[in-house]
């Protein structure tokens, strides 16, 4: 009996102590910005839609069912970019870092869906999947305070030459500097990260073949894309295989 009581008190004390020290530790943190960001000095790239298994797209352009998931994922992903949701966002000056350090309420820059052209889902509800020109959205990971230098753009290559023609929206895969820096979830609630749509016009005689695509971020000296170990730092590789 006594021993149970002892451990009750003992662990109770330890739990309280743990809670207390954690509370003290959390008090030292800002709710806006993490204390350190050295583990994410350079952003990773990611694509949408993201197939469940690995980054491999398999679909039949004449079978709507085979790409329905990709389409719905894209649709969902782009919902937050819908004009109706962007009413609060402002139009910023393109090509310039949008510094709001002195402003208490951080504004988000508007990202017009029309920038994504044929991949905006406006004209083609299937994002090109039904035509054999599937769209993949490439986005750069959000990192608080990151200010890209130069003219960052997404550039994709295919290992197999001549199988696919790659088109970018916005043109040349440019990522506008006005979307940077990001101020964090709590200060920058409506922030939308810039997207680059990559349209893969698959050559009609290259169907049934697995096409490996690698996209990289180029044109900005402070965004890494060649890390030995991190295969997603400033780059992303995926595969597409389309049948008819």
């Amino acid at each position, binding site marked *: 009996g006594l021993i149970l009581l002892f451990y009750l008190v003992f662990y109770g004390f330890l739990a309280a102590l743990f809670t207390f020290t954690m509370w003290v530790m959390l008090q030292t943190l800002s709710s806006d910005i993490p*204390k350190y960001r050295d583990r994410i000095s350079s952003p990773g790239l990611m694509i949408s839609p993201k197939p469940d298994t690995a980054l491999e797209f398999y679909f039949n352009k004449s079978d709507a069912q085979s790409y329905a998931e990709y389409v719905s994922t894209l649709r969902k992903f782009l919902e937050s970019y819908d004009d109706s949701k962007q009413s609060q966002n402002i139009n910023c000056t393109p090509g310039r870092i949008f510094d709001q350090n002195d402003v208490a309420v951080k504004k988000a820059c508007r990202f017009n869906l029309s920038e994504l052209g044929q991949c905006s889902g406006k004209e083609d509800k299937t994002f090109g999947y039904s035509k054999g020109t599937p769209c993949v959205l490439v986005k750069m*990971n959000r990192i608080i305070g990151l200010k890209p230098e130069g003219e960052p753009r997404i550039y994709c290559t295919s290992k197999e030459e001549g199988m696919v023609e790659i088109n970018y929206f916005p043109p040349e895969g440019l990522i506008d500097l006005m979307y940077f820096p990001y101020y964090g979830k709590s200060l920058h609630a409506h922030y939308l990260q810039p997207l680059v749509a990559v349209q893969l016009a698959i050559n009609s005689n290259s169907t049934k073949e697995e096409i490996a695509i690698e996209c990289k971020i180029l044109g900005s000296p402070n965004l890494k894309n060649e890390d030995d*170990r991190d295969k*997603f730092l400033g780059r992303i590789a995926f595969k597409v295989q389309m049948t008819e």
Partner: protein
Amino acid sequence: EDHKLSTSELEEKYGTSINKGLSSARAAEILARDGPNSLTPPKATPEIVKFLKQMVGGFSILLWIGAVFSWISFAIQLAQGAESPFDNLYLGVVLALVVILTGIFAYYQEAKSTNIMASFSKMIPQQALVIRDAEKKELPADQLVVGDIVEIKGGDRIPADIRLISTQGCKVDNSSLTGESEPQSRSCDFTHENPLETRNIAFYSTTCVEGTATGMVINTGDRTVIGRIASLASGVGNEKTPIAIEIEHFVYLVAGVAISIGVLFFIISVSMRYKILDSIIFLIGIIVANVPEGLLATVTVSLSLTAKRMAKKNCLVKNLEAVETLGSTSIICSDKTGTLTQNRMTVAHLWFDNQIYSADTSEDQTTQPFDQSSPSWTALSKIVTLCNRAEFRPGQENLPIMKRVVVGDASETALLKFAEVILGDVMNIRARNKKVAEIPFNSTNKFQLSIHETDDPNDKRFLLVMKGAPERILEKCSTIMINGKEEPLDSEKAAAFQTAYMELGGMGERVLGFCHLYLPENEFPDTYPFDTDSMNFPTSNLCFVGLLSMIDPPRSTVPDAVSKCRSAGIKVIMVTGDHPITAKAIAKSVGIISATSETVEDIAKRLNIPVEQVNRREATAAVVNGMELKDMSLQQLDEILCNHSEIVFARTSPQQKLIIVEGCQRQGAVVAVTGDGVNDSPALKKADIGIAMGIAGSDAAKNAADMVLLDDNFASIVTGVEEGRLIFDNLKKTIAYTLTKNIAELCPFLIYIIASIPMPIGTITILFIDLGTDVIPSVALAYEKAESDIMNRRPRNKRKDRLVNEQLAVYSYLQIGIMQSVGAFVTYFTVYAEQGFLPSTLLGVRVDWENNAINDFEDSYGQEWTKYQRMYLQWTGYTAFFVSITIQQVADLIIRKTRRNSIFQQGLFRNKVIWVGIFSQIGIALILTYGLGHVTALNFMPLRFQYWFVAVPFAILIWVYDEVRKLFIRRYPGSWWDKNMYY
């Protein structure tokens, strides 16, 4: 039966000739048939078996299981084509390496301690003088065969069992065989039915002390009497040492905890829908976290450190585990001669002028303090000096007298040294008093006589001096010297002699009487031809001068050592082949029988009642004669061992030693036994710890023993006991220290499985704690000084006082261990929170966190992380967790210095090695963190400096808490707290 045969019958039986010996060809034939004349060494375990034993002993099996599981999961992952299956391969390899390396280490340690012994058994090959082909030849003794005729002389070791054919004053020392310390004469006559008792056989490995003999080899090698005993000894099973039992108990305990937690969480993780493969990986992690990989090696090192320390104090330990056995010893069965005593006769008392004088018997006497002014002493000293055949070996003038080597028997040696100490230069005195005739001592006359010229040039008389058995000497006397004057020996003076004689004899001393006579000048002129055969000189009506009594005195350090044993609750039992009276006298003088206690016989004598009427319970002491022991049933022996606290076994044969040892072990005691003879080896083996004498001991005894006493001194055993007890305490501390952090290594796995947080610590990291930072500190605890006088408590109870008891496990696991875990988790959460993952975000993220395809994992601030960025963070977490454990282990190390006393009582800086441990711990952690922080495979990351201090408050808390614990233990002994918190 060869002892009964006549010479010619023997010649016939062995096909040999006494004069010509065997022919070389025949000898070679027999050699081929019987094998060499040497003892087969005890079967050694093959090295490979020893090595493999180390590979599967202790925790190795668990780690092998871990390794095999790692390889299985590697194979499965490889087959499934997963991204990084090699992690598991590496882990398996690392685990296997850990087992193999610790196995090699343990094997090496064991081999090293065995090697110390190997040097002992190496001896100069013995030579024997053999007659073969009618020629005398020197042959190596192992070439001897049955039927060989060998010649031996004083100083030789008998090369085989030999039936003597001709002898000249041959005496052999059979002590290694029978324990009898007196040399025994040997002749060609068949004197006893029992071959062991008959005089015409000399036994292998005994020594010829003096004289010469020729004999025929009748047994060689293992067929000799010694050989048969040696093989008997190897038949006595070796008992497991107490520390081996304790360590086994501990391994079972920890392995039990590891396996049950492992299996429990395997079931939990399977039922939580984790994949089987993942569950297996968790299982490996739990096993690795639970098993203190470095501990067994640490224990070995600690034991060998103690063994080294003991070797410096003249206890050479053969078997490392015996180090601790000595500490748990509760009964020491000690030899008398050489162990408790100095193993040399020394004059202890004198009687002249109607008065007993005591002489100094210490080892390094240079003068004698008794009153030497009486003219009687001058006369006595002259007899002592002159009536003595013993001589110093030349060339020892610079040695202290007591250390000089003497040619002569024990009594004469004693007298020679005694005279040399008091008078100086005995040889010169003898030269000045030229000897003209001499009758040496023999057993029929029981006296020794010599006639000398005197060194007084004015006195032309001859001096006849005589010594011998007191009653015989007295018979030959008509006068007695009192204060230098001859007085008639009346009945009153004879009665005084009797009283003194009885008193000295009662002290167990060997008494000699001395008398002299100045031969009248007119009857015995210068040229008188003395003839010892016809005895043409008077041997009666002499003048009695005095008595000298001798004893083999106790070593001066022994009484102190015995009283230490007494306060340490260790019963000292004397087992000797000597006479009960001598044994009892020595037992009394060293304190084995204390001054106030009485034997049954003493009580009977005091109350003047027959022995049978004495209440046996009243007697605390007992002197048991070997003859009585022979007729005793086991119950009677048990009764004696149980009821008497002070026991002396006298006149015991070495075989009876085994019976006594077994009797003590039946009482549940841990028994230490000393021994030197070959016949002692069964007892030495049977004992929990057999102690062989380094100087007097035979090789067989040294082989059978666990420990060799280099100086043959009982007091060294006691220092050994002290070291043994200390190491037991310190091993407790080491284990407590080591077990604690296992919880801090285990908790991360459990919480990882249950709360699905990112992995807080890696398996490799755990190995770096167990085999890296923690090793030197845990060895350092072996250097800790005792908390209180360990020689003032009773020996530990084998059944109750475990090395690892419940309190130790519970306190380490459930209290300090949990505190450490809390401290480490605070650091872990701090690192994650300051990088953007608040604790609330971390819960339940495991699956996504570890998903290689998710490279935009969102943190609490909306930032997105690639998998690899998360891995880096995870490794930073590992490092932070590792550093926190290390920091808190420093506190753990400090608190483990004592179990009861405050650290401040013990002294924070007294044990310098602890600080070496602390610095090594932090140093290794710094190197791993900052030096190897970029080697990905090790999963260490350079850490922000402040994270080293997050756990410091918890480390301080651990220290303070433990101080409070100890304070309560000291304040309230016997309380609930004491019972539950003292380990």
